[in-house]
């Protein structure tokens, strides 16, 4: 017996739009089964996971803070994925961007000026872009598989950060904790409104989403990204360069991942630590696909995925389940999103044996 995927003749537009919602629904159903199997009350568990974080102002701020890096990274990734460049290493670009942006407040902490923060942002974007340029160069020049190179560079970045904060950048007044010194006031990303914790990282995310939405929708550059992603040959016929597009896509997504890293360390953490991301760079891949690679859809998807982080923490406290459930929910969601998309385009057919397959005549 084998399973065949047969392309459907017509694709229902209604279902193409509904697909993310169907995936969300299926994730919830799987969640109910999961909580029952764990011996928890599924209604209470889902409530504390998905509703409770939305009931208070402070947790809405938390939601925005957690959504910001996801949206920033995912918007950049959407450019990559639309142009058929598979950057899986945003987590590494996030870390290197955060480190590059931290050079001024950590190494040159004596220099305190309003110029510091804008320069930190520039450094972070350059750092993230430069780190993304490595897999881009390898792909464009040596035809290396960018999925592998960008993914492996994540581990390099993680270990490099770990070594740096334990070694050269360790806070000399920090009792040997593996942390850098705390950022001074000029190096901290300000809040958007005085009364809440949400910092400008969320603002950057919304601006990036709007700008890229406009580029993708209205400009020749967006057209070029789409054409090269659909067919490199047609792109060359149009006079676009697929090699340049490799660099463009990786540099844009690297810069945005770097900016996300900077926003996180400067706006939320206030210093560098051995671990600065709960896997934002990987979760952003789910965000990008859940948002249909559309920057505005990504804003919504980023908020949903941020909710799973918050819900995980809330459920850990209120009903005592492990925070691994967060990862599980994210995995389920990606699985169902990709599954729904596949089933919209293809029909599954079971074929029993090779000889009897033409039985319906």
């Amino acid at each position, binding site marked *: 017996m084998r399973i065949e995927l047969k392309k459907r003749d017509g694709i229902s537009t209604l279902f193409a739009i509904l697909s993310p919602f169907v995936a969300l629904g299926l994730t919830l159903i799987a969640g109910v089964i999961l909580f029952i199997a764990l011996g928890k009350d599924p209604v209470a568990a889902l409530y504390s996971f998905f509703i409770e974080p939305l009931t208070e102002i402070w947790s809405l701020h938390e939601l925005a803070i957690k959504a910001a890096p996801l949206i920033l990274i995912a918007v950049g990734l959407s450019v990559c994925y639309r142009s058929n460049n598979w950057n899986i290493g945003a987590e590494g670009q996030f870390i290197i961007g955060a480190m590059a942006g931290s050079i001024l407040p950590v190494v040159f902490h004596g220099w305190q000026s309003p110029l510091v923060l804008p320069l930190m942002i520039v450094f972070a974007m350059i750092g993230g872009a430069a780190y993304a340029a490595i897999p881009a160069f390898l792909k464009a020049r040596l035809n290396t598989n960018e999925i592998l190179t960008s993914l492996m560079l994540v581990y390099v970045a993680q270990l490099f950060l770990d070594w740096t904060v334990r070694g050269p950048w360790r806070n000399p007044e920090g009792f040997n904790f593996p942390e850098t010194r705390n950022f001074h006031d000029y190096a901290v990303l300000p809040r958007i409104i005085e009364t809440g914790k949400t910092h400008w990282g969320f603002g950057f995310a919304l601006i990036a989403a709007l700008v890229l939405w406009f580029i993708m929708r209205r400009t*020749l550059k967006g057209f070029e990204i789409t054409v090269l992603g659909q*067919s490199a040959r*047609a792109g060359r016929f149009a006079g676009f360069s697929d090699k340049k597009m490799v660099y463009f896509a990786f540099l844009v997504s690297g810069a945005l991942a770097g900016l996300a890293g900077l926003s996180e360390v400067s706006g939320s953490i206030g210093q560098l630590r051995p671990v600065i991301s709960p896997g934002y760079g990987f979760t952003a891949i789910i965000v990008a696909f859940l948002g249909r690679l559309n920057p505005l859809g990504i804003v919504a998807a980023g908020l949903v995925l941020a909710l799973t982080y918050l819900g995980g923490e809330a459920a850990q406290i209120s009903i005592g389940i492990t925070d691994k459930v967060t990862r599980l929910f994210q995995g389920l969601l990606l699985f169902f999103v990709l599954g729904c998309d596949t089933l919209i385009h293809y029909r599954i057919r079971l074929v029993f044996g090779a000889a009897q397959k033409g039985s319906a005549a």
Partner: protein
Amino acid sequence: MENHEIEIPLLETRRLTKIFGSLKACDGIDLAIAPGEVHALLGENGAGKSTLVKMLFGVLEPSGGEILWKGRPVKIGSPAQARATGVGMVFQHFSLFEALTVAENIALALDGNVPIEKISDEARRLSVDYGLPLDPSAHVADLSVGERQRIEIVRALLQNPELIILDEPTSVLTPQEADKLFETLAKLKAEGRSVLYISHRLEEVQRICDRATVLRHGKVTGACDPRQETPSSLARMMVGGEVAAISGAGLGEPGEVLVEVSKLSAPARSPFAVALKDVNLTVRAGEVIAIAGVAGNGQSELFDVLSGEVTVSHADQIRIGGVAAGRLGITARRLMGCSFVPEERHGHAAVPTMNLSGNLVLSRYASDRKTFLSGGWLGLINTGPVATATKRISTDMDVRKSLVDPLAGSLSGGNLQKFIVGRELDRQPRVLIVNQPTWGVDAGAASRIRQALVDLARSGSAVVVISQDLDEVFEIASRVAVINEGRLSVPEPVATMTRERIGLLMGGFHDGAGHPQPEALHAH
């Protein structure tokens, strides 16, 4: 064969139907093939011929109707079952592995475990018996298209089939190679085997087939003895009306030189590509130069260097309007007034998943920057003017579509090709270079496209048409050159060119001194 009316047919279909979504590709087909006859299946592209034979060979599952083999209903569920029943098939597009040898390719298609030496011996014997010279130990990559087809035929014959289906077998052959194929078919027929011969070439059908079934839009529109019909009566059955003849092929005096290719050689860019060897070509304003040749002799490579998708080593090897352009990319050449139509529609000339207006921007954003773009470096696409131009092109070229701006991939081959050609004609290019302009296009659309090419030349542009279709070449060209293994013959006026001469040039016989000289004979 004389009394085939009363015999039980070898293969018969009754009300055979295949539905794809809302399209009835085959609609109640009745067909009967007698033992020992060569039966033609005629029809335009998209008439349902390929769908029908795919059902007979077990590749597609019928939606309705039945297939009878020697009077008994059978279900053919897979190609293996078809072969076991006694049906062999030679596909239009070969399914061969280029890196393997002939014998290995044959072994791959056989069911069961047969030692490769035995296959080699058997293949050698069959190729001798049927006049199909073939070396079982040769690598497929080194073989010509005609030789590759022989592999497919031998592969089918190894199963000792009673019915052999050939799908457009001569579309890739030189006239001489086609003659050889016809001899083989005559031998098969003499042995009492039946042949189902799919073609849209009327002359060869009249020459070799005993009976013909004509399909149009998935239905049988006629069954006849092709020898009793005239080409035009057969064409009427196929097309369902008269096809407009191209008017005014006799063009005026050519003007200034617009394209000049001199001493152009380019190495093969992959192991299976063709190297261009010392190509020289001059194209003047107001003429149509046709480049004939069998597929895979360097046509796409020549197109790529002319379009600038591949640049050449010296700038002055290609001159456009007197300017050395060999190192310029496709956008720069477009800005010099050139337009290009590549052979492959899906994924080269057009992006199938984009709508027509997007596909218009694809090749025109640079040349029509002022109209289609605004906002300076921002490069905003002006949807209004793009939509207007899309509509204008669709009207001018009679592109038939159900939506205002459908996805390119949803159009039929002919309609999409009309749009692609129209997209380039719409800007009145000084130079137009087209590769296989009517490949896979129905007769009505083909005639429209050819007329448009001739009209463009008459208005003073230079047109280069690379084409495998000799009818097309004779219909529209003012001069004809032939490409063979990456070499281009000296263009000759169409008035002094004959099919036989083109056939010789296609086979590699060039004449420098006025009489045929075998320059590069194949070693067999």
